[in-house]
């Protein structure tokens, strides 16, 4: 048994310590977003955020996650209350089959948390570990740019709210 912190909640996990995080998220915690794509760290479909950094959950064993904060796409927002990055992907219709998209979004989210105003070149470089087979790349890039604007607006709004209080 170990304690795993996912999306702000502690979970008691009964799995071997070398179990890749991906299977714990998908099966023990029944979270869908992180996807199995290769199990080899080659495609990015399984990407989640651990302590602010994008991590390939298919090659990250449970034992490395003690005391760390894991965030999955489910932790950012919901269908009813989507986070800026989720809204951006919906508004740009940035998916075809969508299988790779959750991983892309998590990498982009980690980037924007660290650097809220990346250049197009920086976004492309950051997404380099990620594969998309449908060829949705142009829309993915547009969605990340839209997310930058939405986050900016959201920040401005919440700053406004704070100062109003």
């Amino acid at each position: 048994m170990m304690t795993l912190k996912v999306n702000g909640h502690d979970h008691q996990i009964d799995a071997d310590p070398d179990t890749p995080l991906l299977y714990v998220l998908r099966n023990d915690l029944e979270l869908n977003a992180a996807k199995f794509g290769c199990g080899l760290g080659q495609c990015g479909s399984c990407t989640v955020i651990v302590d602010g950094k994008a991590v390939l959950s298919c090659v990250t064993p449970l034992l490395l996650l003690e005391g760390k904060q894991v965030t999955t796409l489910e932790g950012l927002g919901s269908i009813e209350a989507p986070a800026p990055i989720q809204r951006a992907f919906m508004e740009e219709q940035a998916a075809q089959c969508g299988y790779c998209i959750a991983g892309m979004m998590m990498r982009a989210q980690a980037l924007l948390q660290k650097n809220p105003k990346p250049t197009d070149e920086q976004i492309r470089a950051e997404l380099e570990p990620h594969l998309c087979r449908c060829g949705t790349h142009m829309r993915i890039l547009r969605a990340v740019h839209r997310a930058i604007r939405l986050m900016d607006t959201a920040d401005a709004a919440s700053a406004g709210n704070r100062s109003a209080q």
Partner: protein
Amino acid sequence: MNAAVILDRRRVLAGGGALIVSFSLSDAFAQDQSPPPAAPAPSPPGSLKGAPFLDSWIRIDADGSITVFTGKVELGQGFKTAFQQIAAEELDVPFQSLKVITADTRRTANEGYTSGSHSMQDSGTAIQNAAAQVRELLVAEAARRLDLPADNFRTGNGAVISPNGQRLGYGDLVAADMLHVQAQAKSKLKDPSTFKVMGQPVPRVDIPAKVTGGAAYVQDMRLPGMVHARVVRPPSYGAQLADCDTSAVEKLPGVVKVVRDGNFLAVVAKKEFQAIRAMNALTAVAKWRETPSLPKQDDLLHVLTSLPSQDSTIFQQSNPSAVGQKTIEATYTRPYQAHGSIGPSCAVAQSVNDAMTVWTHTQGVYPDRQGIAQMLRVPPASVRCIHVEGSGCYGHNGADDAAADAALIARELPGLPVRVQWTREQEHAWEPFGPAMVTKLKASLDGNGAISDWNFEVWSNTHSMRPGGAGSMLAAQHMAQPFAVPAPKPLPLPEGGGDRNAIPIYKFPNAHVVHHFIPAMPVRISAMRALGAYHNVFSIESFMDELAVAAGADPVEFRLKHLGDSRGRDVINRAAQGFGWRKGQKAPTDRGYGFAFARYKNLAAYCAIATEVEVNRETGRPRLVRAVAAVDSGQVVNPDGLINQIEGAIVQSMSWTLYENVTFDDTRITSIDWQTYPILRFNAVPDSIEVHIINRPGQPFLGSGETGQGPAAASIANAIANATGKRLRNLPLTRKRIKDAIDA
């Protein structure tokens, strides 16, 4: 009371078109009342031909809720949304008030495969006409109840509205078997100028769940008590399992069962990572006898043209008065290429009281059911296949094989839902690849720089080994009592397989097109997006550029000179205009401009693509800078969905064209992951892609999912030739090949 018209498949199937429902549509379909007695009755459009009952497509419940049924599947192309738009439009109901159910052998019509860019024209057309006819039935029923002529009734927001404004809800109007009638040949379709939902960029219904972690794929299914299976595939085609002591594996933590049936080997465990561990252990103890059987990967030109072939002239045009003065020839090759789905194939199966249910991302639930039933040696009625989305497939990937795997394993564990997940390496090694191809072209120019004769020969396997029979599925091939791989057949024209788009759309006075169909399949192959059209269009459109250069003509002008089809001409002009194509233009240093055009299958959507490519002369590395496409897919249903398809086609085709090549030694496939089978990554994504739609209101839907593949390939090849002065004819156009050509 539930007055829903419940679709009863058995009854519908028993009817089989022979069941005559005496229902008068005299008011609604006056124009069809008196067909000439001798002529055969015209059949209704699209897939209504095979499934003519309106309630196979549309169900209205007493509470007014509406369900639309399609036998096609959502593969990420956005059909579910497009079908919902079509039905909402013709039924005159709000878009959100409908639900679309996709392929399920218990619930939907048999529409075969979701392939060949047929969904809009087959299912979309059926839904459009069924919806229009249902609407007319509802109007007729309202008129009957109010004892008024139907002429002045209108519909809106899910109700029929009488001339004096009285509203009768669809749910109140529909009763018993009212929609269980055969479709008429003609429908009163809405005037396209009044469309409110069709033609709008309605957001896709599947995207919100996909970007918020909703359960969206078969991979996301979790049934109560579900166990996890992994298959241990042979290391190579035809390998025999010589020895396998499974006793140690059976004792591993969580292992429920090891399944062995001849060369079919699998392990089932309670938890997924336990299954993976057991699979690795089982792989280690399985001893296989392998036979070297693969051809020389680096000499496919010779391999393919040397294999026995069935040759047929598929097009012949002769005009002796046209005489050529200058003749050129060229040979083009395409390697085996992989679908390379990002999510490896997956399926869930459960056997309960001898009834097998399989949840699968197959493209064809009915053919899959037939194959699985045959493999299990049970009647098809005892198998149900339900489509659940998977990762994009772009043709026949491992989906059907995974479905068969799951069924074979689930049979051994009655009651337990079994989830089979393929590994990355299994998907790469075992999926049926897009076939390698060779084309040889020869043409002459007359004194005016026009093509006087055209010769085109293509060598290819079939482009579909999809199930129907069990023998197409790996599990059935590997069982102790195996099913033989069915004899391959060339796919018939006009759509064709290896000869898809082999017949030129251009008009030449003399033309001769030969299809060399190769029955022997040294490498496992099947349908991949665009089938033979990818290579044939690449060849034709590359060669058109070679001829334009030989004629000293502008490539766009040269195409227009040989093209009569006015919609084709419009598409070419639109793409050229959008790109800023100018006759005699020169690209900046180390850049080139390319152009290509095709009408998919010569009967589906038109697509022209202009590209700008930059080539690094030091490394040979090409980069697509920008692409401008124009597309005519008839009446547009969802413009944003169409643009998404064309954008994707350009990017995916670029990846095939510049990088992709299945590799193998004499025994094994050696491109087994993303390191050994590299595809496009973000560093190669262009600066921009622009797609211009030429909408054709009221015209039939023309499938557009595959129309971009060939033109994108040729446009990029032409731009590389324009940039470097060197013509590359062997796919993929790799950095090394470009560098070697520059240095030669």
